[in-house]
């Protein structure tokens, strides 16, 4: 299966996810720690791009708490990666509903001002800000597909499994997201 092969690619280390999950089900928190360290970076990146830096730690913690609680109901441990992404997107969607997109955008921009203080690379900072704003102005469904596909290299079939939508819908959302981004950049004076 594509998804399982991708997950295997993503986590070639030993022990594999299935073995770790079995140990977690026995209450082994050290095995869960290994899973956390294996995946937290990707989860964190996805959540950051979807939700911004506000509450990022809380969101990551929420994802892995849901993972721990949901492990006894995980029927296909070999698809752990797909399942984990699905949880991360659900957490991001919940956060979006709770916090409100507009307020988050403002906080994101304010937080970014603290992150990029190098005066020698203002042009790069400008483009970073542009990319962030461009991605954030996309509808959540398009943003999720664009981030997973274009920034995190997930194949379309896996994205379809994560979001539980047909591959054709993934393609159409990706197409619309890119078109909207191109238009946004053009409106900002950046022509690719």
């Amino acid at each position: 299966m594509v998804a399982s092969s991708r997950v295997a690619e993503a986590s070639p280390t030993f022990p594999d996810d299935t073995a770790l999950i079995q140990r977690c089900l026995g209450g082994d928190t050290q095995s869960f720690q290994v899973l956390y360290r294996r995946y937290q970076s990707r989860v964190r990146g996805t959540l950051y791009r979807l939700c911004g830096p506000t509450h990022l730690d809380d969101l990551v913690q929420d994802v892995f708490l849901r993972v721990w609680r949901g492990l006894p109901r995980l029927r296909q441990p070999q698809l752990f990666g797909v399942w984990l992404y699905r949880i991360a997107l659900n957490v991001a969607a919940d956060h979006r509903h709770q916090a409100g997109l507009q307020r988050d955008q403002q906080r994101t921009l304010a937080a970014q001002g603290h992150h990029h203080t190098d005066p020698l690379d203002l042009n790069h900072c400008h483009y970073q800000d542009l990319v962030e704003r461009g991605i954030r102005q996309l509808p959540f469904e398009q943003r999720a597909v664009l981030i997973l596909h274009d920034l995190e290299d997930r194949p379309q079939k896996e994205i379809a499994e994560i979001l539980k939508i047909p591959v054709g819908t993934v393609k159409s959302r990706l197409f619309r997201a890119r078109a909207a981004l191109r238009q946004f950049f053009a409106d900002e004076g950046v022509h690719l």
Partner: protein
Amino acid sequence: MTTPLPDDPQLVSFLRQHQSPVPAPALDLEARLLATLPPHVAPRSAGRRWPFVLAIGAAALWGLGQVLIPARQPETLRLATVETHLEESWSHVFSAHAEPWTTEPLP
């Protein structure tokens, strides 16, 4: 297998080149997470459902028995009638033999 290759390389390259770095997590995030893990509650497996299934089965059998018992009553009544008849007949025979001995002694 679907191809992971981007089909809008200029746009994708621009996005990747200028995406913001992800902020580092708090130093104690991992420790906090591990400290808040609740104990696992095992899911209801098929094996654990057996007592429940057996209880339901027993209750169903008992209910079925309650429904069928009235249907057996005529047979029970017939048996009771036969028993009464036998007892009466036996008593009659017994009393017929016993009567001469108990009423008047032989001269």
